[in-house]
């Protein structure tokens, strides 16, 4: 890849976030192409491992997007996912990866603009972080 835009994976639930991403398209909104969506039936399916694997695979940022609170089609999947994301953020911080690279969002299927906005915001946020995820630390703590 020749562009310098950060690579972002967005785990989206089928009913809300993925639908919102579709709506962003229907509304012809624009966001950076390096946001790649992976569809899950529900963010409840999001194994915390996927987040770490995404970073291992070279992602600079990870978005997890589920339904609005109280609006999960599977009742509580988004609440579980939110907690998992919080836990992984803590872990990331401790292994030298800025936790800001990972974020959980709630959005409804009607929020196409919000999805595009999230994609743009995360891209900007990660751009503003000093180093890329896997650049060696200046003092490779031996």
């Amino acid at each position, binding site marked *: 890849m020749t562009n310098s835009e950060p690579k972002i994976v967005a785990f989206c639930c089928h009913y809300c976030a993925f639908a919102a991403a579709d709506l962003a398209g229907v509304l012809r909104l624009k966001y950076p192409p390096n946001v790649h969506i992976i569809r899950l039936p529900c963010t409840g399916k999001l194994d915390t491992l996927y987040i770490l694997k995404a970073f*291992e695979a070279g992602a600079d940022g990870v978005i997890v997007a589920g339904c609005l609170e109280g609006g999960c089609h599977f009742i509580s999947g988004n609440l579980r996912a939110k907690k998992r994301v919080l836990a992984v953020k803590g*872990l990331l911080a*401790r*292994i030298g*990866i800025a936790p800001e690279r990972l974020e959980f969002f709630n959005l409804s299927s009607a929020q196409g603009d919000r999805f595009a906005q999230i994609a743009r915001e995360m891209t900007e946020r990660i751009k503003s972080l000093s180093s890329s995820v896997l*650049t*060696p630390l200046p003092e490779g703590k031996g």
Partner: protein
Amino acid sequence: MIVADQKPIEEILQMLEPYRKVLFLGCQTCVAVCMAGGEKEVGLLAAAVRLARKHQGRPIEIVEGAVKRQCDDEFNEPWAKTIEQQEAVLSLACGVGVNKLSERFDVPILPALNTKFFGEVERQGVWAEVCAGCGNCILHLTGGICPIARCAKNLLNGPCGGVRADGTCEVAQNGSRPCAWVMIYERLGKLNQRQNLENIFGAKDWSSDRHGGPRKRIREDMLLEG
């Protein structure tokens, strides 16, 4: 079940510092149930360590696996070849597993967990110590609630003066644990067995606890040799 906690990732990374080729071996029994060392945790920890090491510019090669019970050689045996090819093994089992692997293999076996206690699942995500494994059970006298494990001072003759007005123990932060003796008192009331409290419980014989040195249990009729 044995309840354990994963060590802080910093400590694990420090342990792994000299090594570049390591097996992360989980255990699918107690520590899987308490979400410290099952296959899922192996995957997570391995990914985190790989990321951290890549980050440090010193990549590490990790083989991931989990066995049914690390405290039995037979379950570990299928991993023998793999283990022998490693510079070290990070065991995500309780201390028993680490000991067991160390007895069997000449490779450094590193503990990824802090083994904590025998516990119950209070509710999902919360484990509580309720048995101390003292080797001399008196639960029939205390309404099934163990004062050795559940009282911070191992008291045997009733609660100390540090019970909060709401019946919680002053040692536990923000009232997170009820006083074991208040529980025993109430439970015995329900069972109509408060008379159990009238007599003095004598001083405990701690020789059956691990204060008597490392313990061993032998069942003669099950011995295969001799």
